[in-house]
């Protein structure tokens, strides 16, 4: 780096203030050019559709009489929103995802944390193998994972169901409870490994002096691991929880695929499925837009709460 620091020392050339101002203006121009591709695409493919959807949510579409004349669009004010809050199916879709998150997220984060702590403990051999083995499902497309597990949930094909029923249990994909567990297990299988890698990397970054200080204080290995290490990476855990909530709420492809066998999963099982169904199967465009906005607001509020909560935990 000696060459650079030499340049650095030569750096502030005796420029006039006006010249420096022009330099700053030039940088703003360069920044704008670098940012433009993203923001133009972001505007066209996110902001404009958002505004458009917002507008649509105040209208209702009705077919005007016989067939092909097109649709009549009427301003209905907040009717779509009122209707959504009285729609049992829409509310139930939130309930389903809520129960699913309650089963899935704490389990997954806890497993990922334990595995990362174990990998980080000094006694483990073949660390690279385990990390890779845990990570592999994360690469599998969600839809294909759903296909694999669909067969692993099917009595008559699945070795798992056989093993389970040989212990005297009864496996019933048509019950609500097994629907939630099927989806949660699928998500745990898919996403735990990514978070193990994430937490493990965060643990590696914990300064060793901090750990040594804790050991001298007399904290045992297990206590050190949980009380101190977990606390030190609470930032990484918070981010993981946030993104997991946002992702889990948007559950779509997996339950859609499972509807073919698991009758407990209806075509409006999750908010995303509800919104999709309203738009593309019932052509209820305005209503779909309104429900989508309610859904987005819920995600926004939850994310905000999750960030607040982790900040507090870190403080």
């Amino acid at each position: 780096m000696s060459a650079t620091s030499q340049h650095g020392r030569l750096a502030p050339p005796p420029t006039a203030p006006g010249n420096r101002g022009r330099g700053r203006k030039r940088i703003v121009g360069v920044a704008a050019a670098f940012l433009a591709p993203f923001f133009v695409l972001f505007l066209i493919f996110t902001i404009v559709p958002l505004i458009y959807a917002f507008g649509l949510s105040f209208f209702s579409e009705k077919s005007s009489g016989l067939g092909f004349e097109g649709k009549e669009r009427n301003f209905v004010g907040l009717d779509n929103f009122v209707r959504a809050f009285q729609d049992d199916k829409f509310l139930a879709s939130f309930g389903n995802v809520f129960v699913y998150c309650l089963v899935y997220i704490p389990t997954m984060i806890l497993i990922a944390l334990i595995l990362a702590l174990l990998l980080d403990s000094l006694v483990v051999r073949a660390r690279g193998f385990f990390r890779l083995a845990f990570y592999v499902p994360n690469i599998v497309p969600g839809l294909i994972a759903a296909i694999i597990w669909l067969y692993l949930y099917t009595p008559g094909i699945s070795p798992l169901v056989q093993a389970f029923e040989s212990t005297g249990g009864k496996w019933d994909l048509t019950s609500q409870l097994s629907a939630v567990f099927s989806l949660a297990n699928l998500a745990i299988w898919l996403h735990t490994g990514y978070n193990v890698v994430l937490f493990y990397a965060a643990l590696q970054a914990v300064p060793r002096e901090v750990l040594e200080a804790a050991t001298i204080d007399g904290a045992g290995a297990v206590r050190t691991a949980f009380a101190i290490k977990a606390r030190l990476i609470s930032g990484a855990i918070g981010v993981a929880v946030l993104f997991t909530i946002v992702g889990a709420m948007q559950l779509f492809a997996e339950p859609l695929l499972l509807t073919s066998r698991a009758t407990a999963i209806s075509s409006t099982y999750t908010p995303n499925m509800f919104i999709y169904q309203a738009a593309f199967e019932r052509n209820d465009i305005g209503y779909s837009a309104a429900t989508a906005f309610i859904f987005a607001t819920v995600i926004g509020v939850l994310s905000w709460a999750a960030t607040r909560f982790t900040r507090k935990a870190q403080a």
Partner: protein
Amino acid sequence: MPGTRDGALGRSPLLSRLAVHIVLIVFALYTLLPLTWLLIATTKNTADLFGTPGFSFARFSLGDNLVRLFTVDDGIYARWLGNTFVYAIVGAAASVIVSFLAGYAFDKFEFPGKERWFASVLIGVLVPAAVTTMPLYLLASATGIVNTFWGVFLPSIASPFGVYLARIFSNSYVPNEVIEAARIDGARELKIFTSIVLPLMRPGVVTLFLMAFSGIWNGFFLPLVMLTDTALYPVALGLYTWNGQAVADPSMAAVVITGSLIAMLPVIGLFLGLQRFWQAGIGTGAVK
């Protein structure tokens, strides 16, 4: 005196080592066994798939399954694979360039309202696809890009999460002094970006490319909405359609299972091949 330290790991090193390894092995079995089942299932014909135990081999029919996979529906599966490659490679490359241009600008350039612009990117991360997909479909219908390559390709380029990560990567891999030095040497900003900054951020570039690639490869919602022509389907959407047919026609099950395995191989191959880079890349994301 390790023997007197309290805590299980200190007290009984051999036993605790064993316990730690058992836990890790059990979880590795959980992650790997379903894939093993898939591997074995692809070697069975329909009768054996439904009639023999999941983890035992039967008459080896992988060849037959592959032939069927690539001939069913006039061999449309190869077309789906090709489509997915094009969507994923072109889309991921475009997405990475756009993300790094923006992420680098956010990290290294000073301009008015910078953090406010960045906040808008972060809010973009939270916008659920469900809200934008339906209006996107309507807009795409109005402009005629619905049911075309562009309808799937264009909306998948701008990734707020990609910009967020790119800023972190730029911050951790690119020292300010290097840019200063290049500027003093009279290099132009775009030249600095392409010949100095991008090579420095290589692990980040690889990580983002892989994330974008697998995101598009696995993408389902957007193609489901945008495409009606099966000849334009990506492989995930195609398999979904076939899986629906398998309920009525069990012989499609073997095709769906074999198709699932083949569809996974490119992504897994890419990840294994570039392991060195993305493991470093994910690490950077976690530490910041």
